[in-house]
């Protein structure tokens, strides 16, 4: 069984400031890791994913995340946020079944960008 903990339910940040959204996971098997963004009244859009290889993963919209196996973390970062980044962000984990495993999501972090 897997679980995901997103440590902050809400993160307020000023525009153009850096941000980090924290994610920790628990799993007894090897995992794939994902970050999704959800804008109001919309579905989920993939920001980035870690499958294997380099632990620093770059995604869309200037976001990046670092996989830390020893700390079982996959924190999301952006060096300078924009008003349009206001959204709900979800961290998710799956087994390495190549799409055969369902995703386990955290409860989400609401990123609030203040002008």
């Amino acid at each position: 069984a897997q679980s995901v903990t997103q440590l902050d339910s809400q993160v307020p940040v000023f525009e153009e400031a850096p941000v980090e959204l924290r994610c920790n996971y628990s799993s007894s098997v090897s995992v794939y890791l994902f970050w999704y963004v959800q804008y109001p009244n919309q579905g989920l859009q993939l920001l980035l994913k870690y499958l294997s290889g380099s632990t620093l993963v770059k995604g869309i919209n200037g976001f990046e995340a670092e996989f830390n196996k020893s700390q079982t973390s996959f924190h999301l970062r952006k060096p300078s946020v924009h008003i349009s980044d206001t959204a709900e962000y979800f961290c998710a984990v799956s087994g390495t079944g190549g799409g055969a495993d369902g995703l386990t999501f955290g409860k989400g972090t609401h990123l609030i960008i203040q002008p």
Partner: protein
Amino acid sequence: DAGVTQSPTHLIKTRGQQVTLRCSPKSGHDTVSWYQQALGQGPQFIFQYYEEEERQRGNFPDRFSGHQFPNYSSELNVNALLLGDSALYLCASSGRGTIYFGEGSWLTVV
């Protein structure tokens, strides 16, 4: 190239009724998963279909059932609706390790 499409986008049902939600996967994807997202929560995995069979199931009762057709499209059926079934139902299709989500179907049970 159309992404994952879901229908209907919104619907209202009465307790005890049955509902069917539909999903067409992204072109080239043969695996469809369904998720339930209650208000203010993360999505929860319901089940996954591959080659017209249920391959994996989350912690949902038998009232939740599904089907996958030869063209890989899928249906989610929920019987004996409860107020607590009110949620956004998301369909995801996967292929080559990437998972894409549709916009979802908003179900309100009154």
